[in-house]
């Protein structure tokens, strides 16, 4: 009879507790694997209605919660807090464009145009087919005097979805004021009005341009 066997097979309560604690701590401390470098994305166009962009990546529930909290901070005007939280989220989700786009918008709001541009370019590296990133980058380019690049950005957004009214209006304003291209401005204001027909301001702008063009 092997007298030692029962002893060695029986769990040592202290050792067992330590092991459980260690495993629990490892589990609690483990960070979820970051999303792949670039998550596969789909743009679904729905004719005259709009579009939906989906990036296929598993997102840890805590990361998603942090993201939502960051957006809440930003929307409540707690910009510094929201940016700090978003930076953390973006660092762990390099395959997703939304955190970078939102960082771009947030940095723009605090006046850090360099950081805004950097984040929007990172977003476009991840998903070159994101109209929001193109539109926001267009605004940054315009504000920094790079009008040709601004135009390219708005046009890139519109190439994905011609009815994206944010980019359409911004392209019209760019042509109107900064490029002095009134034909371009008129064409784009008119296209914009097809998506936002009750914009009284834009109606007035069109009338003014037609007057200046002698039409």
């Amino acid at each position, binding site marked *: 009879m092997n007298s030692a066997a029962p002893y060695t097979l029986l769990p040592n309560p202290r050792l067992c507790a330590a092991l459980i604690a260690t495993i629990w701590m490892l589990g609690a401390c483990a960070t979820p694997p970051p999303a792949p470098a670039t998550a596969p994305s789909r743009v679904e166009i729905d004719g005259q*209605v709009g579009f*939906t962009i989906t990036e296929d990546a598993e997102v840890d529930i805590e990361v998603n919660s942090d993201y939502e909290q960051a957006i809440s901070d930003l929307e409540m005007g707690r910009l510094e807090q929201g940016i700090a939280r978003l930076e953390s989220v973006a660092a762990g989700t390099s395959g997703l464009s*939304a955190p970078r786009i939102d960082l771009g918008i947030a940095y723009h709001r605090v006046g850090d145009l360099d950081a805004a541009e950097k984040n929007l370019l990172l977003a476009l590296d991840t998903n070159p087919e994101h109209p929001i990133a193109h539109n926001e980058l267009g*605004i940054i380019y315009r504000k920094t005097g790079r009008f040709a690049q601004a135009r390219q950005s708005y046009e890139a957004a519109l190439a994905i979805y011609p009815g994206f*009214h*944010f980019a359409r209006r911004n392209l019209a*304003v760019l042509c109107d*004021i900064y490029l002095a291209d009134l034909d371009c401005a008129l064409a784009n204001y008119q296209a914009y009005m097809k*998506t936002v027909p009750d914009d009284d301001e834009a109606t007035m702008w069109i009338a003014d341009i037609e007057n200046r063009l002698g039409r």
Partner: protein
Amino acid sequence: MLAERSYQQHTRLVLVQPFEQSLAAKQQSLDTTLAELGALVEYEVADVTAAATFYIAEVYLDFSHALLDSERPTDLNEKELADYELMIEEEAYPFEERAIEVHEENLELLTAGVYNSWIEKTLSQLASLMPGRYAKAEISSGFVGSINSYAYRMPIAPTITIDPVDDEAKPDEATNPIEVTARISTDAVLTANHGATEQP
């Protein structure tokens, strides 16, 4: 900066009674300041030109404001004062018009690839003086708000709403049970899209 100093000196002169005397001094200052600023434009250095042109426009605008804010005579009756106000406004208006023209000339530097803080200031002034033409800001779509998806709907996009069907329109439930409970409406409705200008 020289342009700014010339401008500041000019703006310190206010129009007080006796009006003719202070007006003569202000007019002389106007001519001198415009000549100094015009000389800066002749350097043909983009940033200097933009700054000097900005201040030329502002000198005209200041003159317009100085007229409107000038001290009124105290010896006028009600009707005479009303006529005086009208006359002052008529005299001030061309200076504001000239200010707008000069600011617009400054804006033309954009087409030559000049974009600096002076052009931004000019644009800001034009947006204030002629908001219908120049107060046009870009619009942002706002935050994405969802970590791995984004749905955009045009403001005019039709949406599906389910309206209760009134009794009179109620079809035969046995033959068409779906229409008994719902009706598709494609009226244009508000579409929430993170800051979009919405339809009523």
